[in-house]
């Protein structure tokens, strides 16, 4: 499920905080035949707006078209593409893994190495919360798999531009609404 480097694009979409806006955004992707890889949405500090972080697994050419189509939605206020090198990306994962008998210590050790937090403990399973860059979560998932993953829930990634003033920051894409 990992996206090969360079093939994914992260869009940060500022939308009006109104009923049905997420459905508009999601159905636009469905209508145009593009797949959403990851989606996270929540209100911003300004109650009028929400921010949607969308990760799409497409070439640059369709991306430009997606952005333009997205911008035609009346409730979409601003779209920025966040280049991976110029942004901070984080994701949260909850994972329940087998941890019984002799493996329990090994699993807990792994959690510590990855700076995860054990949030629930059962007789032969533990649930771990882990946050970080998406690749860190992927790595943890891979290392846990031999012990047995019972269930897993990831939030999808959220992202903001890096603050380094010398680096190119927000690369605004798209034009005005038509």
């Amino acid at each position, binding site marked *: 499920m990992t996206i090969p480097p360079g093939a994914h694009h992260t869009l940060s979409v500022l*939308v009006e905080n109104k009923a049905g806006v997420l459905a508009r955004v999601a159905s636009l992707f469905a209508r145009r035949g593009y797949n959403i890889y990851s989606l996270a949405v929540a209100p911003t500090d300004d109650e009028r707006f929400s921010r949607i972080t969308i990760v799409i697994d497409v070439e640059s050419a369709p991306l430009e078209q997606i952005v333009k189509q997205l911008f035609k*939605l009346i409730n979409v206020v601003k779209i920025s593409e966040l280049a991976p090198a110029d942004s901070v990306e984080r994701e949260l994962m909850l994972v329940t893994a087998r941890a019984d008998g002799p493996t329990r210590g090994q699993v807990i050790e792994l959690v510590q190495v990855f700076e995860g937090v054990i949030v629930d403990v059962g007789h032969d399973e533990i649930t771990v919360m882990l946050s970080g860059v998406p690749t860190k979560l992927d790595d943890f998932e891979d290392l846990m798999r031999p012990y047995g993953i019972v269930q897993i829930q990831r939030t999808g990634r959220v992202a903001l531009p890096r603050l380094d003033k010398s680096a190119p920051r927000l690369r605004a894409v798209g034009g005005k609404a038509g």
Partner: protein
Amino acid sequence: MQLTGAQALIRSLEMEGVEVMFGLPGGAILPVYDPIIDSPIRHILVRHEQGAGHMAEGYAHATGRPGVAIVTSGPAATNIVTPLCDAYMDSIPMVVITGQVPSTAIGTDAFQECDTVGITRSVTKHNELVMNAQDLPRIVREAFHIATTGRPGPVLVDVPKDVAQATMDWYWPESVDLPGYRPTTKGHPRMIKEAARLILASRRPVIYAGGGILKARAAEALRELAELTDIHVVTTLMARGAFPDDHRLCLGMPGMHGSYTAVTAMQEADLLIALGSRFDDRVTGKVDAFAPDAKVIHVDIDPAEQGKVRKPDVPIVGDCRLVIEELVREIRALLDGGTEQADTSAWRSRVSGWRENYPLTYEPSREGDALKPQFVLEQLRDNTPSDTILVSGVGQHQMWSSQYWRFNEPYTWVNSGGLGTMGFSVPAAIGAKVGRPDRMVWAVDGDGCFQMTAQELVTASTERIPVKVAILNNAYLGMVRQWQEMFYDERYSEVYLSPDLPDYVKWAEAMGCVGLRVEAPEEVLPAIEKANEIDDRPVVIDFRTDAREKVFPMVPAGRSNDDIVLPPAQREGAER
């Protein structure tokens, strides 16, 4: 002042200058129908909600003002989905009001409930479910603003019954506040300069005029540009009339059934000046092989059209009229500054050679043969006022209408281009006649199309809307028959309709119209003259036409425009 939501809604429509709306009442929209009695807005009671939608479209096509339709919830809302999609594809400004079950019942699968905003989301420019009566004036104001500005399109407002019944404090918003909606109207000056330079340097330029010219009211500006630069103009199906057919620079329609000259001039061009056109597949044919040597200047108000199909060399986002006017100014300035336009004389002589060798043509019927549909259109064209509004359905008759008519004025051609909606013409003609009662309105319909929405002639009769309908009755779903003949070894699967069923004359009479039947060439003119004289009710003429007639030229679907198929008479020795 306290009003009910329903009163506020009708009042808002009045504030927007709505003079007519097309609709049909029902349970959920009942409260809104009550204040209509006291409103100066004319309401036209349709027989089917699809009719209301197409009438609103026809009205918008003919007048440039937004069409308004009002229907109830559930099946009424689903019935108007086709016109919404049609208006979306053809960028028609339209506002549709739908009733909805009370907000407390939403989500319960209540009687006549459907998720109207969900269903119409992808076929409207915008839609809104009103949850509070106090929001109604603002939402209506926004709806009209969105429908008519930028790239026009349909907007739907869904009004729950209890919202229409609730009270609110009347206000009219001074302005609209839509932070995410700021259409660009003025073209980028640097791009306009670049475009002007390219135009003057081009040796084989063609102006590719699309429906956006008409939406932007840019017909005059287009003419100025063409005449200033002496560049030929092709007018797409949506742009027929945007440039006069009788103008020496007009090449007519390009595309699948375009004229040989229009199609070939685009293929051979070194510059396409695309104005409000969207590179539809019916125009380009196989995209990779379309106009291979041409640089492209693309003017469109919708940024998403830039590069969607063909990457432009000079993209200009903006209103067609404003951009063309700027372009004309820039070209004049360059010419005044001593820049010379490249020599296009060789190109112009090639174009006139194609025109001479490959005019639109058909073989006239010999004595005793069936009537040719093209002949009927020529007779109609030559025996109606020059400002007649022609409305067509979808199929062979639509292509012949576009080919054989002479559109010398803008807004005289009404048709369903993008969606290709059969059954469009009868209701759209009614809408056009309501918007332009001073004009003669003829609908040219196929027998297949006519059977889809003919019931709206009852609306026309009862509302005294004297439209005229010419059915080109070849007893077939003609365009499907043509494809089966050419591409399916003449295996005619499910396309035969019977010329006698229904009896169109009796059907017309039953609907309150005058019905006429024409079977021979010599009967054509008298029937048209008779129809032209009748002005107190609709007229339907059943023209019995030759079923074997095909639309030529034709570029087979998915093929290159270089593979254009000429009519049989022109095929021998045909070469560029």
